Protein backbone atom coordinates (compact mmCIF):
# COMPACT_ATOMS: atom_id res chain seq x y z
CA UNK A 1 0.00 0.00 0.00
CA UNK A 2 1.24 3.50 -0.80
CA UNK A 3 1.30 6.57 1.41
CA UNK A 4 0.62 10.05 0.05
CA UNK A 5 4.19 10.45 -1.14
CA UNK A 6 3.99 7.08 -2.87
CA UNK A 7 0.89 8.18 -4.76
CA UNK A 8 2.68 11.38 -5.78
CA UNK A 9 5.72 9.37 -6.88
CA UNK A 10 3.61 7.12 -9.09
CA UNK A 11 1.76 10.06 -10.66
CA UNK A 12 5.07 11.79 -11.37
CA UNK A 13 5.73 9.04 -13.93
CA UNK A 14 2.78 10.37 -15.96
CA UNK A 15 4.45 13.76 -16.31
CA UNK A 16 6.16 13.97 -19.69
CA UNK A 17 8.82 16.21 -21.20
CA UNK A 18 7.40 19.54 -22.37
CA UNK A 19 4.26 19.37 -20.24
CA UNK A 20 2.59 22.35 -18.60
CA UNK A 21 1.04 20.91 -15.45
CA UNK A 22 -1.51 22.22 -12.97
CA UNK A 23 -1.26 20.69 -9.52
CA UNK A 24 -4.15 20.81 -7.08
CA UNK A 25 -3.88 21.17 -3.32
CA UNK A 26 -2.86 18.19 -1.16
CA UNK A 27 -1.29 15.05 -2.64
CA UNK A 28 -1.00 16.64 -6.12
CA UNK A 29 1.33 19.32 -4.74
CA UNK A 30 3.76 16.56 -3.73
CA UNK A 31 4.07 15.36 -7.34
CA UNK A 32 6.49 18.20 -8.12
CA UNK A 33 9.01 16.59 -5.76
CA UNK A 34 9.23 13.40 -7.82
CA UNK A 35 9.30 14.57 -11.44
CA UNK A 36 12.43 13.33 -13.24
CA UNK A 37 15.01 16.06 -13.46
CA UNK A 38 16.09 15.17 -17.00
CA UNK A 39 12.81 16.49 -18.46
CA UNK A 40 11.48 20.03 -18.85
CA UNK A 41 8.16 20.65 -17.12
CA UNK A 42 6.48 23.90 -16.04
CA UNK A 43 4.04 24.03 -13.18
CA UNK A 44 1.09 26.38 -13.44
CA UNK A 45 -0.77 27.65 -10.41
CA UNK A 46 -4.18 29.08 -11.20
CA UNK A 47 -3.75 32.12 -8.98
CA UNK A 48 -1.41 33.43 -11.67
CA UNK A 49 2.04 31.91 -12.05
CA UNK A 50 3.71 29.64 -14.57
CA UNK A 51 7.14 28.25 -13.79
CA UNK A 52 6.71 27.62 -10.08
CA UNK A 53 9.78 26.61 -8.14
CA UNK A 54 10.30 25.14 -4.68
CA UNK A 55 9.37 26.77 -1.37
CA UNK A 56 11.63 29.70 -0.46
CA UNK A 57 14.41 29.51 2.09
CA UNK A 58 13.48 30.86 5.49
CA UNK A 59 13.66 34.65 5.47
CA UNK A 60 13.07 34.84 1.72
CA UNK A 61 9.27 34.41 1.77
CA UNK A 62 7.39 36.98 -0.30
CA UNK A 63 3.71 37.70 0.44
CA UNK A 64 3.32 38.58 -3.24
CA UNK A 65 4.49 35.19 -4.51
CA UNK A 66 2.20 32.34 -3.48
CA UNK A 67 0.59 29.26 -5.03
CA UNK A 68 -3.09 28.28 -5.21
CA UNK A 69 -2.79 26.77 -1.72
CA UNK A 70 -1.71 30.23 -0.48
CA UNK A 71 1.73 28.82 0.31
CA UNK A 72 4.81 30.95 -0.22
CA UNK A 73 6.75 29.74 -3.27
CA UNK A 74 9.59 30.76 -5.56
CA UNK A 75 9.75 31.01 -9.34
CA UNK A 76 12.24 29.44 -11.73
CA UNK A 77 14.03 31.18 -14.61
CA UNK A 78 11.52 31.67 -17.42
CA UNK A 79 8.57 32.03 -15.06
CA UNK A 80 5.73 34.48 -15.63
CA UNK A 81 2.93 36.10 -13.64
CA UNK A 82 -0.50 36.93 -15.04
CA UNK A 83 -4.04 37.84 -14.02
CA UNK A 84 -6.83 35.39 -13.18
CA UNK A 85 -8.64 35.72 -16.50
CA UNK A 86 -5.48 34.86 -18.40
CA UNK A 87 -4.74 32.03 -16.00
CA UNK A 88 -8.08 30.41 -16.76
CA UNK A 89 -7.59 31.11 -20.46
CA UNK A 90 -4.62 28.74 -20.17
CA UNK A 91 -6.85 26.20 -18.45
CA UNK A 92 -10.12 26.43 -20.40
CA UNK A 93 -8.21 27.03 -23.63
CA UNK A 94 -6.51 23.64 -23.19
CA UNK A 95 -3.01 25.04 -23.09
CA UNK A 96 -2.28 23.16 -19.86
CA UNK A 97 -1.36 19.55 -20.72
CA UNK A 98 -2.05 17.77 -17.46
CA UNK A 99 -4.23 18.45 -14.45
CA UNK A 100 -3.71 16.54 -11.22
CA UNK A 101 -6.25 17.03 -8.47
CA UNK A 102 -7.74 15.43 -5.40
CA UNK A 103 -11.28 14.13 -4.98
CA UNK A 104 -13.78 13.06 -2.35
CA UNK A 105 -15.57 10.75 -4.80
CA UNK A 106 -15.12 9.54 -8.37
CA UNK A 107 -17.83 7.66 -10.26
CA UNK A 108 -17.30 4.90 -12.81
CA UNK A 109 -18.47 7.22 -15.61
CA UNK A 110 -15.76 9.77 -14.76
CA UNK A 111 -17.86 12.14 -12.66
CA UNK A 112 -15.96 13.81 -9.83
CA UNK A 113 -17.03 15.41 -6.55
CA UNK A 114 -14.57 17.38 -4.46
CA UNK A 115 -15.96 20.71 -3.32
CA UNK A 116 -18.88 20.38 -0.95
CA UNK A 117 -20.46 18.18 1.70
CA UNK A 118 -23.99 19.62 2.08
CA UNK A 119 -24.70 21.01 5.53
CA UNK A 120 -21.23 20.22 6.82
CA UNK A 121 -18.34 21.41 4.73
CA UNK A 122 -18.57 24.13 2.14
CA UNK A 123 -15.23 25.47 1.11
CA UNK A 124 -16.02 26.09 -2.53
CA UNK A 125 -14.76 24.78 -5.81
CA UNK A 126 -12.00 27.30 -6.42
CA UNK A 127 -10.61 26.52 -9.86
CA UNK A 128 -11.58 22.84 -9.83
CA UNK A 129 -14.72 23.19 -11.97
CA UNK A 130 -12.86 25.13 -14.65
CA UNK A 131 -10.03 22.59 -14.59
CA UNK A 132 -12.16 19.46 -14.88
CA UNK A 133 -14.51 20.96 -17.47
CA UNK A 134 -11.68 21.71 -19.84
CA UNK A 135 -8.62 19.55 -19.29
CA UNK A 136 -8.15 16.66 -21.70
CA UNK A 137 -5.86 14.85 -19.34
CA UNK A 138 -7.01 14.66 -15.73
CA UNK A 139 -5.47 12.44 -13.09
CA UNK A 140 -7.14 12.13 -9.71
CA UNK A 141 -4.86 11.56 -6.74
CA UNK A 142 -6.63 10.24 -3.66
CA UNK A 143 -6.89 7.51 -1.05
CA UNK A 144 -8.98 4.56 -2.25
CA UNK A 145 -11.30 4.77 0.77
CA UNK A 146 -12.33 7.59 3.10
CA UNK A 147 -11.50 7.76 6.78
CA UNK A 148 -14.55 5.62 7.60
CA UNK A 149 -13.24 2.92 5.26
CA UNK A 150 -15.91 3.57 2.60
CA UNK A 151 -14.95 3.36 -1.04
CA UNK A 152 -14.37 6.63 -2.91
CA UNK A 153 -14.66 4.87 -6.28
CA UNK A 154 -18.41 4.63 -6.73
CA UNK A 155 -21.12 3.62 -9.17
CA UNK A 156 -22.46 7.15 -8.79
CA UNK A 157 -21.25 10.15 -6.82
CA UNK A 158 -23.36 10.95 -3.76
CA UNK A 159 -21.89 14.43 -3.19
CA UNK A 160 -22.53 17.51 -5.37
CA UNK A 161 -20.55 17.16 -8.58
CA UNK A 162 -17.55 19.20 -9.62
CA UNK A 163 -17.66 17.94 -13.18
CA UNK A 164 -19.29 15.25 -15.32
CA UNK A 165 -17.56 12.45 -17.19
CA UNK A 166 -14.17 14.11 -17.03
CA UNK A 167 -11.79 11.90 -15.04
CA UNK A 168 -9.51 9.68 -17.11
CA UNK A 169 -7.09 8.18 -14.64
CA UNK A 170 -7.02 7.62 -10.88
CA UNK A 171 -4.02 6.83 -8.71
CA UNK A 172 -4.82 5.72 -5.17
CA UNK A 173 -2.90 4.16 -2.32
CA UNK A 174 -3.99 0.77 -3.71
CA UNK A 175 -4.05 1.02 -7.48
CA UNK A 176 -3.85 2.81 -10.81
CA UNK A 177 -7.18 2.76 -12.60
CA UNK A 178 -8.58 4.09 -15.85
CA UNK A 179 -12.15 5.07 -16.62
CA UNK A 180 -13.28 2.95 -19.60
CA UNK A 181 -16.72 1.73 -20.71
CA UNK A 182 -18.40 3.01 -17.58
CA UNK A 183 -16.09 1.19 -15.22
CA UNK A 184 -12.80 1.40 -13.36
CA UNK A 185 -10.26 -0.61 -15.35
CA UNK A 186 -7.54 -1.87 -13.07
CA UNK A 187 -4.15 -1.04 -14.58
CA UNK A 188 -1.66 -1.57 -11.76
CA UNK A 189 -1.61 -2.71 -8.16
CA UNK A 190 0.32 -0.88 -5.45
CA UNK A 191 3.26 -2.90 -4.08
CA UNK A 192 2.01 -5.78 -1.94
CA UNK A 193 -1.68 -5.12 -2.64
CA UNK A 194 -3.82 -7.98 -3.99
CA UNK A 195 -6.52 -7.68 -6.64
CA UNK A 196 -8.90 -9.04 -4.01
CA UNK A 197 -8.15 -6.13 -1.69
CA UNK A 198 -8.73 -3.60 -4.49
CA UNK A 199 -12.02 -5.32 -5.35
CA UNK A 200 -13.20 -5.01 -1.77
CA UNK A 201 -12.31 -1.32 -1.62
CA UNK A 202 -14.03 -0.45 -4.91
CA UNK A 203 -17.80 0.05 -4.84
CA UNK A 204 -18.11 0.86 -8.56
CA UNK A 205 -17.63 -1.61 -11.39
CA UNK A 206 -14.03 -2.86 -11.37
CA UNK A 207 -12.82 -4.20 -14.71
CA UNK A 208 -10.05 -6.77 -14.34
CA UNK A 209 -8.51 -7.87 -17.60
CA UNK A 210 -5.82 -10.55 -17.28
CA UNK A 211 -2.88 -10.32 -14.90
CA UNK A 212 -2.52 -6.98 -13.16
CA UNK A 213 1.10 -5.89 -12.76
CA UNK A 214 2.49 -4.30 -9.65
CA UNK A 215 3.50 -0.65 -9.89
CA UNK A 216 7.11 0.03 -10.64
CA UNK A 217 8.08 2.96 -8.42
Amino acid at each position, binding site marked *: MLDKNGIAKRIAKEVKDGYYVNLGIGIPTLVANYVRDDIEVEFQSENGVLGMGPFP*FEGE*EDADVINAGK*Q*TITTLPGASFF*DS*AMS*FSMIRGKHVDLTILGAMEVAQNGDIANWKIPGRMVKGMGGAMDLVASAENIIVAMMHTNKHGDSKLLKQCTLPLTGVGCVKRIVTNLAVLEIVNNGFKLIERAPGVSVEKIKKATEGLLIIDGDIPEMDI
Partner: protein
Amino acid sequence: MINKKVAHVQDALKGVTNNMTFMLGGFGLSGIPENAIAELVKLGVNGLTCISNNAGVDDFGLGLLLQKKQIKKMISSYVGENDEFERQMLSGELDVELIPQGTLAERCRAAQAGFPAIFTPAGYGTEVAEGKETREFDGKMYVLEHAFKADYAFVKAWKGDAAGNLIFKGTARNFNPNMCGAAKITVAEVEELVPVGELDPNQIHIPGIFVQRIFQGEVYEKRIEQRTVRQRS
Protein backbone atom coordinates in the same frame (compact mmCIF):
# COMPACT_ATOMS: atom_id res chain seq x y z
CA MET B 1 -2.94 63.86 -18.15
CA ILE B 2 -6.27 63.34 -16.44
CA ASN B 3 -5.62 63.37 -12.72
CA LYS B 4 -7.16 60.48 -10.74
CA LYS B 5 -5.18 61.06 -7.58
CA VAL B 6 -6.98 61.52 -4.29
CA ALA B 7 -5.13 62.32 -1.08
CA HIS B 8 -6.70 59.85 1.32
CA VAL B 9 -8.64 56.64 1.47
CA GLN B 10 -11.60 58.71 2.79
CA ASP B 11 -11.77 60.64 -0.49
CA ALA B 12 -11.30 57.46 -2.47
CA LEU B 13 -14.37 55.89 -0.87
CA LYS B 14 -16.63 58.92 -1.25
CA GLY B 15 -20.15 57.89 -2.26
CA VAL B 16 -20.02 54.45 -0.68
CA THR B 17 -23.34 53.65 1.00
CA ASN B 18 -25.25 50.73 2.49
CA ASN B 19 -26.50 47.89 0.24
CA MET B 20 -23.97 48.46 -2.53
CA THR B 21 -22.21 45.79 -4.56
CA PHE B 22 -18.40 45.79 -4.48
CA MET B 23 -15.69 43.92 -6.31
CA LEU B 24 -12.56 43.36 -4.26
CA GLY B 25 -9.30 42.11 -5.75
CA GLY B 26 -7.00 39.58 -4.14
CA PHE B 27 -6.37 35.86 -3.92
CA GLY B 28 -6.31 34.66 -0.35
CA LEU B 29 -4.68 37.60 1.43
CA SER B 30 -2.37 38.35 -1.48
CA GLY B 31 -3.12 41.58 -3.33
CA ILE B 32 -6.16 42.57 -1.28
CA PRO B 33 -7.09 46.27 -1.00
CA GLU B 34 -6.15 46.45 2.69
CA ASN B 35 -6.71 50.19 3.09
CA ALA B 36 -10.11 50.25 1.40
CA ILE B 37 -11.28 47.32 3.53
CA ALA B 38 -10.11 49.02 6.73
CA GLU B 39 -12.00 52.18 5.72
CA LEU B 40 -15.17 50.21 4.91
CA VAL B 41 -15.00 48.78 8.42
CA LYS B 42 -14.66 52.32 9.82
CA LEU B 43 -17.53 53.65 7.71
CA GLY B 44 -19.74 50.86 9.05
CA VAL B 45 -21.65 50.50 5.77
CA ASN B 46 -23.69 47.32 5.74
CA GLY B 47 -25.95 45.16 3.61
CA LEU B 48 -23.01 44.79 1.23
CA THR B 49 -22.68 42.34 -1.61
CA CYS B 50 -19.01 41.48 -2.12
CA ILE B 51 -17.56 39.85 -5.20
CA SER B 52 -14.19 38.48 -4.18
CA ASN B 53 -12.46 35.17 -4.82
CA ASN B 54 -12.03 34.52 -1.10
CA ALA B 55 -13.45 35.91 2.10
CA GLY B 56 -10.26 36.61 4.00
CA VAL B 57 -9.42 34.95 7.30
CA ASP B 58 -11.18 35.51 10.63
CA ASP B 59 -9.20 38.60 11.58
CA PHE B 60 -7.94 39.99 8.27
CA GLY B 61 -9.13 40.93 4.82
CA LEU B 62 -12.86 40.58 4.24
CA GLY B 63 -13.02 38.65 7.51
CA LEU B 64 -12.98 42.09 9.19
CA LEU B 65 -16.22 43.07 7.42
CA LEU B 66 -17.75 39.67 8.18
CA GLN B 67 -16.99 40.06 11.89
CA LYS B 68 -18.97 43.30 11.91
CA LYS B 69 -21.75 41.62 9.92
CA GLN B 70 -21.49 44.28 7.20
CA ILE B 71 -21.74 41.75 4.39
CA LYS B 72 -25.14 40.47 3.28
CA LYS B 73 -23.94 38.39 0.37
CA MET B 74 -20.62 36.96 -0.81
CA ILE B 75 -19.88 35.85 -4.35
CA SER B 76 -16.69 33.79 -4.20
CA SER B 77 -15.03 30.63 -5.45
CA TYR B 78 -13.31 29.43 -2.28
CA VAL B 79 -14.12 30.33 1.29
CA GLY B 80 -12.15 27.89 3.45
CA GLU B 81 -9.81 29.29 6.09
CA ASN B 82 -12.54 31.39 7.68
CA ASP B 83 -14.53 29.93 10.60
CA GLU B 84 -16.77 32.97 11.08
CA PHE B 85 -17.69 32.85 7.41
CA GLU B 86 -18.58 29.16 7.62
CA ARG B 87 -20.65 29.79 10.75
CA GLN B 88 -22.61 32.67 9.16
CA MET B 89 -23.15 30.69 5.98
CA LEU B 90 -24.33 27.46 7.62
CA SER B 91 -26.64 29.42 9.97
CA GLY B 92 -28.13 31.27 7.00
CA GLU B 93 -27.11 34.78 8.19
CA LEU B 94 -24.93 35.19 5.15
CA ASP B 95 -26.06 34.60 1.59
CA VAL B 96 -23.28 32.88 -0.37
CA GLU B 97 -22.98 32.26 -4.08
CA LEU B 98 -20.09 29.96 -4.87
CA ILE B 99 -18.95 30.01 -8.47
CA PRO B 100 -15.96 28.59 -10.33
CA GLN B 101 -12.82 30.70 -10.07
CA GLY B 102 -12.41 31.10 -13.81
CA THR B 103 -16.06 32.09 -14.11
CA LEU B 104 -15.58 34.72 -11.43
CA ALA B 105 -12.62 36.17 -13.33
CA GLU B 106 -14.44 36.10 -16.64
CA ARG B 107 -17.64 37.68 -15.27
CA CYS B 108 -15.45 40.56 -14.09
CA ARG B 109 -13.62 40.74 -17.37
CA ALA B 110 -16.91 40.64 -19.31
CA ALA B 111 -18.12 43.67 -17.34
CA GLN B 112 -14.83 45.42 -18.03
CA ALA B 113 -14.93 44.58 -21.73
CA GLY B 114 -18.59 45.32 -22.44
CA PHE B 115 -19.84 41.76 -22.89
CA PRO B 116 -23.23 41.07 -21.26
CA ALA B 117 -22.45 37.40 -20.73
CA ILE B 118 -20.10 34.57 -21.66
CA PHE B 119 -20.42 30.83 -22.25
CA THR B 120 -18.15 28.63 -20.15
CA PRO B 121 -17.83 24.84 -19.84
CA ALA B 122 -17.12 25.20 -16.10
CA GLY B 123 -19.89 23.89 -13.90
CA TYR B 124 -21.93 22.23 -16.63
CA GLY B 125 -23.87 19.30 -15.16
CA THR B 126 -23.34 20.56 -11.58
CA GLU B 127 -25.54 22.58 -9.23
CA VAL B 128 -23.70 25.72 -10.37
CA ALA B 129 -25.50 25.45 -13.72
CA GLU B 130 -28.97 24.93 -12.23
CA GLY B 131 -31.50 27.37 -13.69
CA LYS B 132 -28.97 28.76 -16.16
CA GLU B 133 -29.16 28.70 -19.92
CA THR B 134 -26.94 26.05 -21.51
CA ARG B 135 -25.92 25.62 -25.11
CA GLU B 136 -24.00 23.15 -27.21
CA PHE B 137 -21.06 24.28 -29.33
CA ASP B 138 -19.20 21.68 -31.42
CA GLY B 139 -20.58 18.83 -29.34
CA LYS B 140 -19.67 20.26 -25.94
CA MET B 141 -22.04 21.86 -23.43
CA TYR B 142 -21.57 25.35 -22.02
CA VAL B 143 -23.27 27.47 -19.36
CA LEU B 144 -24.30 31.09 -19.88
CA GLU B 145 -22.84 33.33 -17.17
CA HIS B 146 -23.66 37.02 -16.93
CA ALA B 147 -21.25 39.91 -16.50
CA PHE B 148 -21.21 41.29 -12.96
CA LYS B 149 -22.80 44.63 -12.16
CA ALA B 150 -21.03 46.42 -9.33
CA ASP B 151 -20.97 49.90 -7.84
CA TYR B 152 -17.30 50.00 -6.85
CA ALA B 153 -14.25 47.91 -7.64
CA PHE B 154 -11.53 48.09 -5.00
CA VAL B 155 -8.21 46.95 -6.37
CA LYS B 156 -4.65 46.95 -5.13
CA ALA B 157 -1.55 47.38 -7.24
CA TRP B 158 2.17 47.63 -6.55
CA LYS B 159 2.90 50.91 -8.34
CA GLY B 160 0.69 53.50 -9.93
CA ASP B 161 0.65 57.13 -11.02
CA ALA B 162 -1.84 59.98 -10.91
CA ALA B 163 -3.02 59.07 -14.43
CA GLY B 164 -4.35 55.84 -12.90
CA ASN B 165 -1.84 53.57 -14.63
CA LEU B 166 -1.11 50.42 -12.65
CA ILE B 167 1.64 47.82 -12.33
CA PHE B 168 1.10 44.71 -10.23
CA LYS B 169 3.64 42.49 -8.53
CA GLY B 170 3.86 38.70 -8.50
CA THR B 171 0.74 36.70 -7.79
CA ALA B 172 -0.73 39.73 -6.01
CA ARG B 173 -1.97 40.60 -9.49
CA ASN B 174 -4.69 37.88 -9.60
CA PHE B 175 -8.20 39.35 -9.98
CA ASN B 176 -7.16 42.99 -9.61
CA PRO B 177 -6.63 43.77 -13.32
CA ASN B 178 -9.86 41.98 -14.27
CA MET B 179 -11.88 44.15 -11.88
CA CYS B 180 -10.50 47.48 -13.13
CA GLY B 181 -13.21 49.24 -15.08
CA ALA B 182 -15.68 46.43 -14.31
CA ALA B 183 -17.67 48.53 -11.81
CA LYS B 184 -19.17 52.03 -12.02
CA ILE B 185 -16.19 53.39 -10.08
CA THR B 186 -12.79 51.75 -9.78
CA VAL B 187 -10.71 52.71 -6.78
CA ALA B 188 -7.07 51.66 -6.96
CA GLU B 189 -4.77 51.70 -3.99
CA VAL B 190 -1.04 51.31 -4.54
CA GLU B 191 2.00 50.67 -2.39
CA GLU B 192 3.84 53.37 -4.24
CA LEU B 193 2.33 56.31 -6.11
CA VAL B 194 5.10 57.53 -8.42
CA PRO B 195 5.30 60.81 -10.37
CA VAL B 196 3.60 60.75 -13.76
CA GLY B 197 6.11 59.83 -16.45
CA GLU B 198 8.15 57.55 -14.24
CA LEU B 199 6.35 54.35 -15.22
CA ASP B 200 7.48 52.92 -18.55
CA PRO B 201 4.39 52.85 -20.84
CA ASN B 202 5.58 49.46 -22.12
CA GLN B 203 5.29 47.98 -18.66
CA ILE B 204 1.81 49.23 -17.67
CA HIS B 205 -0.55 46.35 -16.82
CA ILE B 206 -3.72 48.46 -16.55
CA PRO B 207 -4.03 51.80 -18.38
CA GLY B 208 -5.46 54.66 -16.33
CA ILE B 209 -8.67 54.79 -18.38
CA PHE B 210 -9.99 51.88 -16.28
CA VAL B 211 -9.36 53.69 -12.97
CA GLN B 212 -11.36 56.61 -11.53
CA ARG B 213 -9.53 57.18 -8.22
CA ILE B 214 -6.04 56.27 -7.07
CA PHE B 215 -4.26 56.72 -3.76
CA GLN B 216 -1.21 55.46 -1.95
CA GLY B 217 -2.14 53.16 0.91
CA GLU B 218 -0.90 54.36 4.28
CA VAL B 219 0.32 50.98 5.45
CA TYR B 220 0.43 47.43 4.09
CA GLU B 221 0.59 44.46 6.40
CA LYS B 222 0.73 41.97 3.49
CA ARG B 223 0.03 39.04 5.75
CA ILE B 224 1.16 35.58 4.64
CA GLU B 225 -1.51 32.90 5.00
CA GLN B 226 0.64 29.77 4.64
CA ARG B 227 4.29 30.43 5.36
CA THR B 228 6.11 27.50 3.76
CA VAL B 229 9.88 27.26 3.55
CA ARG B 230 12.54 24.68 2.68
CA GLN B 231 15.65 23.87 4.66
CA ARG B 232 19.01 25.12 3.50
CA SER B 233 21.06 22.06 2.70
